[in-house]
């Protein structure tokens, strides 16, 4: 006991002598050698504490002449954990999750078919997405799809494409995928920021969103529930998908994309696990969004392609937004501005 006390006293004295920062390192070192000394009393020949210290690489007296990131670390056991996570649950459950969601959406489409307009189109069109809105949306969307496809090649290609393509052809595809993924990644992060700034105003939660959620947006009943410019489903995708998952995949992606900031392997392993899980969830959610935006809802794709929707569509899908727009236009003087015939046809060029 007295020996222990004296040792601790020495540690405390060294702390004061050396200042705060190196003190913690010295204390860590002492604790390892102390543990080793204690182990030798009970189990002579068991050097486990030393080897644990060796694996950690935190010991300041562990050196090498090779200059490099973590070159003094003799062994890193975390790599095996990463391998088990990535090759195990992430690949298996993640892969089947994507397949399952695709099958579910396909089944839903086969059973229910697309959501059609109930009223007849009025022929009068109103602007839903301006040129900037569409540019930002498609910038993010195209970069997202590129990242999703290349990411799938990198994670699952070995299991689904390699047996078909053979080694040489698949390696070419994979190196192309890696480079597209690495270079498009920052573009996506940039577009995500613009996307947030562009659409955040109309995605703020409103009281009437509760009603929409309670009725699941009329997905099963087929009856439309009134909503603002964006309904609660779109808002959930905006906050949970674009914003939250967008930030998660972007931050972890940057950690992996730029290894020249001397980050260690453990950080990159953790980033990779989070990146993979978040992007698989992101992809499954995006499948829902892509379905609704293309074949799932009649008129939805045209709204983002041309920027214009039919008044009947606006009234049915986004009633409050429709009323607001009409009211604003009236209060601004003059009736709702009808779009020029050319803009109707090729609105995306306008």
């Amino acid at each position: 006991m007295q020996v222990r006390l004296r040792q601790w006293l020495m540690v405390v004295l060294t702390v004061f002598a050396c200042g705060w920062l190196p003190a913690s390192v010295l204390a860590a070192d002492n604790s390892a050698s102390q543990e080793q000394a204690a182990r030798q009393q009970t189990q002579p020949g068991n050097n486990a504490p030393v080897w644990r210290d060796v694996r950690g690489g935190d010991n300041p007296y562990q050196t090498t002449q090779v200059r490099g990131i973590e070159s003094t670390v003799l062994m890193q056991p975390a790599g095996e954990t990463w391998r088990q996570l990535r090759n195990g649950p992430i690949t298996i459950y993640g892969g089947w999750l994507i397949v399952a969601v695709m099958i579910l959406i396909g089944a839903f489409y086969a059973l229910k078919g697309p959501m059609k307009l109930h009223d007849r189109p009025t022929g009068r069109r109103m602007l839903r997405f301006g040129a900037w809105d569409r540019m930002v949306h498609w910038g993010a969307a195209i970069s997202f799809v590129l990242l999703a496809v290349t990411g799938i090649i990198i994670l699952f290609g070995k299991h689904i494409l390699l047996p078909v393509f053979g080694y040489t052809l698949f390696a070419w595809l994979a190196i192309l995928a890696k480079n597209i993924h690495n270079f498009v990644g920052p573009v996506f992060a940039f577009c995500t920021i613009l996307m947030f700034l562009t659409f955040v105003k109309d995605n703020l939660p409103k009281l009437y969103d509760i009603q929409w959620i309670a009725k699941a947006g009329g997905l099963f009943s087929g009856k439309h529930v009134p909503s603002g410019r964006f309904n609660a489903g779109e808002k959930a995708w905006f906050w949970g998908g674009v914003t939250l998952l967008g930030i998660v995949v972007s931050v972890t992606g940057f950690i992996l994309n730029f290894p020249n900031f001397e980050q260690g392997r453990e950080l990159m392993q953790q980033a990779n696990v989070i990146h993979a899980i978040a992007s698989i969830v992101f992809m499954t959610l995006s499948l829902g969004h892509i379905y609704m935006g293309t074949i799932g809802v009649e008129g939805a794709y045209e709204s983002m392609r041309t920027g214009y929707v039919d008044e009947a569509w606006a009234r049915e899908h986004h009633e409050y937004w429709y009323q607001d727009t009409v009211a604003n236009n009236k209060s601004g003087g003059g009736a709702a501005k009808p779009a020029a015939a050319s803009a109707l046809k090729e609105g995306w060029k306008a």
Partner: protein
Amino acid sequence: MARMKFLCDAERCIECNGCVTACKQEHEVPWGVNRRRVVTLNDGLPGEKSISVACMHCSDAPCMAVCPVDCFYKTAEGVVLHDKDLCIGCGYCFYACPFGAPQFPQDGAFGLRGKMDKCTFCAGGPEEDNSAAEFKKYGRNRLAEGKLPACAEMCSTKALLGGDGDVVADIYRNRVLKRGKGAEVWGWGTAYGKPEKSATPPAGAKS
């Protein structure tokens, strides 16, 4: 056939870095790439020990398991090699490897990784033995010449042993019995503790 293994005797290693130099010289490895390194424990303190470490050619190699293009293969002698023509430089083998063996020459801006390079146990790559192409990508193929790895052959204290795992283990066992200490075979549990994955032909040969 012999199962090739590395063994570093921490009681004998004197941190001369002769193995590191021998490796660089033998294979003309590019600047910034270190297939082998010597790590000193308790440097300057009583009980200082040094260990030379490189790819251990694991029985169940993590690099091989995580490679997205499956560019690794194992020879009949248990040596883990890879095909640089297939490697995409993703760095996953570097995340997974317990020994920090995979090295990446920087290939372009922002830390973009080039083709992975690592210790080959002086056994070259999938190209024809001792061809110019093989030397350029992987260094000399000493095993094909009937020689053992240059690092172990060059070791002045015979701390680093490389060769048939059974022979190497016998030499080490005799040493431990004679000196009565230093029985830890560093890294063997991690490298050879798992069941051996069977040898695979070079990936490129399959397509």
